[in-house]
């Protein structure tokens, strides 16, 4: 008899209760949103755009005609050639990659890397594990840097007055500049360079200053990633900088500090911070993070207590804290006018003081020096110095700033200006007119990577080499010297900065390799060649870090408090807004604007891709009146009956500061300080290249060099114009179920009380033993060893639970699985870009992201939870308010590799099937593109190639056979040769990096030869996302081995499967998130806000009608157990 099962009707509580919401639309449950979440792909993703029916038929006719031509000509396989080397190349084995240690220089720091090269072609960057502080981790920007090497828009030839010149001409030019300057001791010569930590460059600059004593050497960086040295000078009287030791800190207060991203050394900070958060068993300690910030950063999402406060009020806040911690009469009046609950400061200060020697206060680098000075004094009082923060000696900065340079130029004293790197024509602050300045200089020579805004103003452009083509040296944030090695000869005869300087200096040695060799061997002594080779091999010069110095506080009084600012804390309002400029998480200060991987990666919090926007707080949005009537939550988007997926129809606003106005779309971002608007820098490039041109708006003209971080006195006016922002935040919602599971670390209903909290809520708690003989809750009560053992046994066991699906045979040697720790994941997007680099994932462009067709195999879901919503009035007026201060939970989601995969049963051609080791594989050649699999995937992790992304430029995809086919050779070079490049019409998704698994297995089998030792040792295989993860949140391995790292991770009590009640048995599981709030704080919640929402949704059933709940579980029992 055919049986029909129906889902139990949702209880009233479920209908009216609260839920996670990912977007303002979801919160308000608009019609459009409801329709959208029903779909397999976002609406419009499957529709053809830009082509009408008639045109479509024309194109089809044309393609058939072309197909016919193809049939007639090339039937048989084309002749291919094997091109063996003429002379054997040392260490090169065709087919095997080589790894070289190098480093990517970034401002004052560097990220040590291992570059993977295939026959001399770098394709992927991994972190260098020899450098312990980063432990082999990198970030999204480093991952994407390899694409920059193959940027088709990079400059291909040096030019003088617009005409291409040879390398010899460039050398002549540089020598001429040098000889002309040496006759006048450098008078008339000026340099404008970006910051660098290269010891060799520092030596050359010192020589330059000695030789050309009258020349000007100026440095400029658009954004600051290190605290101002002036603050340390004032407090300690020494040129030192702080190095935070987050691993030692139990209590951390971040004051406007995004130490996961925008501080130098942030990789180390993120790593160290999460060390204090890795709770693997009950009674493991957990640190506590207080964050005070004006914007919503990833630090804020991780914080246990988050306070929204304008950046300009941070001084008063830190002063109030100093008053509590240090005492005395000095600080109280500094804190005057601060509008913060004093209890918050009291409790926070008390907590910090209670953990003397283990607490730390960190201030963002963009904050003025006096705030840092206060923080240093607090840290000293907390006993943090020498414990949670070290101070290291750095050489005193001797470069002129741009103000000095501008004066020289205006005085007509500069005849030749050499611009080394940077992009001043684009990123100079608005109070300088760079174009006008440059006009006054007769000869401007630009050394740069592409013909950008600055090069267009210069008389001569010298092609720069990419760092993967250069010899050089650099220092990490802690001062460790690391090499920069070329992986490939310069593709376009680019020079290194060292060579340019050496030639101007008229040095006899201009070869950068020798220059670096001399610098390093002078430091190491001993056998020069041997130690240099060791340096290149390790990628790190051991013991070269900046020296830790003993410091003592200078007496009060020598401070630098600006009396003018001391008077009052300025009150902000709608007409007196604060503008905060931020370093973008993707394009940095604009230097990576032409990198498609970074542009397409959604911003971690706003989830905007291919754009920046004025971020506005919910309250300001309301006051500006940009919320349409009747839809108070629809602030930046007008929803007129139809919902256009992915397109956030944002209102355009006009922001005016100091008389300069810029128009840009406005995006409402919950969690901002009410009257702070955030302007992400780095967009609106005009000469970046095909990718970066015209993306977003350029906010640099609003900046003032005296207040680079934030400015007060802005006005924002809303216009009626609209702009479509590509926002991925509404894509693939999971309908607000118990998806991210959170608990408090201690207190009622906490992790300490119930380590298995993740299994004690969610639908699985109602279902019978879908995990076999034990229910989820019973299972979580077992010891970790028992659980690991049972999991290992089950991984090869065929039948368990009840399922309609046929269980595949799991008889492989290994059974692969993954564990993702939500408690340490900071949501930094590094995995997204690493996956893209490893797996040849295409770029689709803004138009396609607007249509919901992005291709990332792993995505980071960002959920807001507010906890204040009341279930009784859901849908009522109160709940239509946009929460001003939500908690954020982030969750990376890729293919979960379900053991009973719903995608497989619906595939008509067996294109997606299981292998014997538990991988849900995808055979691209079988796929005919029905997309049924994506339809049936509960996680929405499958991606469809709507176009030939790898053959067509993103602006030509609609042209079909009439358009230009094929990509520039340069772009193809970045592809990973071990992964198939997919074509149009096939489905793709995360493969657990099957190429890495197979290579490891093959290597092991080769080693085994005529023996049975074919099991790959644990830890050999690292998926791309795991390898890059700075916080080691991702663990991958063999779940059939109960002693493997992944088995141990999965055996932890807080392990849970996403949508586990479906009994599809995903191989990827998550570890529940913990928050560690302080009960003394006024904003203490005994449950994370997401749990509050979950409970209020379900508890009405529990409390209001026990019967109803019983009925629900009965029907659940029917659903899950009744099938047998």
């Amino acid at each position: 008899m055919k049986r029909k099962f129906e889902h139990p009707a949702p209880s009233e509580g479920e209908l009216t209760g609260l839920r996670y919401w990912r977007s303002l639309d979801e919160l308000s449950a608009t019609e459009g949103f409801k329709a959208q979440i029903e779909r397999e792909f976002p609406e419009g993703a499957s529709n053809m755009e830009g082509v009408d029916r008639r045109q479509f038929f024309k194109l089809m006719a044309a393609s058939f005609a072309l197909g016919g031509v193809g049939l007639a000509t090339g039937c048989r396989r084309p002749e291919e050639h094997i091109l063996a080397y003429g002379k054997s190349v040392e260490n090169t084995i065709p087919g095997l990659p080589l790894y070289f240690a190098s480093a990517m220089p970034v401002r004052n720091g560097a990220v040590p890397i291992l570059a993977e090269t295939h026959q001399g072609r770098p394709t992927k960057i991994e972190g260098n594990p020899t450098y312990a502080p980063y432990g082999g981790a990198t970030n999204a920007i480093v991952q994407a840097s390899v694409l920059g090497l193959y940027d088709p828009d990079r400059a291909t030839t040096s030019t003088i007055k617009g005409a291409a010149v040879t390398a010899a001409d460039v050398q002549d030019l540089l020598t001429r500049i040098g000889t002309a300057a040496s006759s006048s001791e450098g008078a008339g010569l000026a340099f404008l360079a970006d910051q660098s930590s290269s010891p060799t460059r520092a030596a050359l600059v010192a020589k330059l200053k000695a030789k050309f004593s009258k020349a000007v050497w100026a440095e400029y960086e658009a954004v600051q990633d290190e605290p101002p040295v002036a603050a340390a000078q004032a407090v300690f009287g020494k040129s030192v900088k702080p190095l935070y030791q987050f691993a030692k800190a139990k209590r951390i207060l971040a004051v406007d500090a995004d130490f996961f991203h925008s501080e130098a050394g942030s990789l180390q900070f993120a790593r160290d911070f999460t060390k204090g958060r890795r709770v693997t068993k009950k009674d493991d300690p957990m640190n506590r993070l207080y964050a005070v910030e004006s914007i919503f950063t990833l630090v804020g999402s991780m914080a246990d207590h988050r306070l929204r406060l304008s950046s300009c009020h941070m001084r008063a806040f830190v002063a109030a804290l100093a008053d509590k911690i240090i005492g005395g009469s000095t600080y109280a009046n500094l804190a005057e006018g601060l509008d913060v609950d004093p209890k918050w400061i009291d409790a926070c200060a008390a907590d910090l003081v209670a953990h003397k020697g283990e607490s730390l206060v960190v201030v963002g680098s963009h904050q003025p020096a006096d705030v840092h000075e206060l923080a240093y004094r607090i840290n000293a009082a907390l006993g943090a110095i020498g414990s949670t923060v070290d101070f290291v000696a750095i050489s005193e900065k001797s470069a002129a700033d741009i103000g000095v340079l501008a004066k020289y130029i205006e005085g007509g004293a500069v005849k030749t200006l050499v611009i080394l790197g940077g992009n001043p024509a684009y990123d100079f602050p608005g109070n300088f007119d760079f174009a006008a300045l440059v006009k006054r200089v007769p000869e401007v020579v630009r050394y740069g990577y592409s013909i950008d805004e600055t090069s267009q103003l210069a008389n001569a452009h010298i092609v720069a080499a990419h760092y993967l083509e250069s010899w050089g040296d650099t220092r990490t944030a802690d001062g460790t010297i690391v090499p920069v090695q070329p992986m490939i000869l310069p593709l376009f005869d680019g020079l290194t900065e060292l060579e340019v300087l050496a030639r101007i200096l008229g040095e006899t040695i201009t070869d950068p390799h020798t220059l670096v060799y001399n610098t390093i061997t002078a430091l190491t002594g001993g056998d020069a060649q041997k130690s240099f080779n060791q340096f290149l091999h390790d990628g790190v010069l051991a013991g070269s870090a900046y020296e830790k110095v003993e410091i003592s506080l200078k007496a009060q009084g020598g401070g630098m408090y600006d009396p003018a600012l001391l008077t009052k804390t300025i009150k902000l309002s709608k007409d007196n807004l604060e503008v905060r400029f931020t370093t973008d998480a993707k394009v940095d200060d604009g230097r990576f604007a032409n990198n498609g991987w970074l542009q397409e990666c959604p911003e971690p919090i706003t989830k905007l891709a291919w754009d920046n926007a004025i971020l506005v707080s919910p309250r300001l949005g309301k006051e500006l009146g940009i919320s349409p009537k009747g839809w108070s939550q629809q602030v930046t988007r007008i929803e007129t009956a139809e919902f256009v997926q992915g397109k956030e129809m944002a209102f355009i606003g006009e922001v005016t500061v100091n008389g300069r106005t810029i128009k840009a779309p406005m995006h409402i971002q919950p969690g901002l300080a009410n009257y702070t608007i955030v302007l992400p820098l780095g967009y609106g490039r005009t000469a970046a290249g095909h990718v970066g041109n015209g993306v977003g708006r350029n906010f640099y003209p609003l900046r003032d060099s005296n207040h680079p971080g934030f400015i007060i006195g802005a006005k924002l006016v809303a216009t009626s114009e609209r702009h479509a922002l590509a926002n991925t935040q509404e894509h693939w919602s999971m309908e607000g179920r118990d998806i991210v599971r959170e608990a408090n670390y201690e207190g009622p209903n906490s992790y300490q009380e119930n380590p298995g909290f993740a299994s004690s809520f969610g639908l699985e708690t109602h279902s019978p033993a879908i995990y076999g003989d034990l229910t989820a809750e019973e299972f979580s009560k077992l010891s970790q060893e028992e659980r690991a053992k049972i999991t290992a046994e089950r991984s090869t066991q065929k039948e368990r639970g009840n399922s309609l699906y046929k269980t595949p045979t799991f008889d492989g040697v290994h059974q692969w699985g993954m564990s993702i720790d939500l408690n340490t994941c900071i949501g930094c997007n590094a995995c997204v870009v690493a996956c893209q680099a490893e797996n040849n994932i295409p770029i689709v462009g803004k138009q396609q992201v607007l249509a919901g067709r992005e291709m990332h195999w792993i995505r980071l879901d960002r959920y807001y939870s507010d906890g204040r919503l009341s279930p009784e009035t859901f849908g009522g007026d109160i709940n239509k308010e946009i929460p001003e201060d939500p908690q954020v939970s982030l969750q990376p989601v890729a293919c979960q590799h379900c053991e009973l995969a719903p995608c497989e049963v619906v595939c008509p051609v067996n294109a997606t099937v299981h292998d014997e080791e538990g991988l849900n594989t995808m055979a691209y050649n079988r796929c005919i593109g029905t997309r049924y699999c994506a339809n049936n995937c509960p996680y929405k992790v499958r991606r469809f190639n709507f176009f030939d992304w790898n053959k067509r430029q993103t602006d030509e995809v609609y042209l079909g056979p009439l358009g230009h086919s094929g990509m520039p050779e340069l772009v193809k070079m970045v592809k990973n040769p071990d992964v198939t490049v997919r074509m149009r019409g096939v489905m793709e998704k995360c493969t657990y990096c099957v190429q890495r698994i197979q290579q490891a297995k093959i290597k092991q089998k080769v080693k085994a030869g005529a023996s049975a030792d074919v099991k790959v040792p644990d830890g050999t295989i690292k998926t791309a996302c795991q390898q890059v993860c700075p916080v080691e949140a991702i663990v991958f391995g063999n779940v059939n081995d109960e002693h493997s790292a992944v088995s141990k991770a999965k055996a932890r009590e807080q392990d849970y499967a996403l949508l586990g009640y479906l009994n599809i048995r995903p191989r990827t599981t998550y570890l529940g998130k913990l928050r560690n709030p302080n009960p003394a704080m006024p904003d203490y919640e005994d449950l994370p806000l997401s749990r509050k929402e979950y409970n209020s949704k379900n508890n009405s059933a529990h409390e209001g009608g026990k019967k109803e709940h019983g009925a629900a579980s009965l029907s659940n029992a029917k659903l899950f157990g009744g099938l047998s």
Partner: protein
Amino acid sequence: MSNLFPRSVNKLPLQILVYLFLVGGLVTAGIAYYATPSYANVGYAPVQPVPFSHALHAGQLGLDCRQCHSNVEKSGHANVPTAQTCMNCHNQIKVDSPLLAPVRDSYESGDPIPWVKIHQAPDYVYFNHSVHVARGVSCVSCHGKVNEMDVVHQDKSLTMSFCLDCHRAPEKFIRDPKLVTNLDWKNPKGEADQVEQGKKFVHDWNVKPPQSCSGCHR
């Protein structure tokens, strides 16, 4: 009852015959083209830029395969030797042979010799030589008796079903890894013993050739 059918119907039987003939022809041509070994390129023996004879080098002189295909045990690719490898001997032997001119040129200039590829797996197939050689699959299983070929031709179909024939029954082909480059070796005791020995190897070495997609397609 006249003119029930138009006059053109008279031609119909002829038309049907012609169409059937055409369709039959197409089917025959299709089968001849797609279902024969030549579609799989068996027997493909292109002219190489240098008339290198494997029969001479590997057969008569008895060079081991790995002498020239030196990385076959390490890499997925069985490398074609560099000109330098050839010159190791040919700077002594046949130093002035005009046939070796391309090799000498390549060695001097570094420009590669354009050898024509014979055994060609599609781009989406990730075949790995090292693992097959290490686990006792002989060169001869896929390449035939190269040591008897003056001009190398493709000996086996190298289709997916060819691969699976072995992956499903490795015992029929597997041998001691020491013997993989001995192209003339056959189990002296015959087919039955090969299978028996093979089964023992499969068991003892835990040989589980992948039969799912992920083994070869990534």
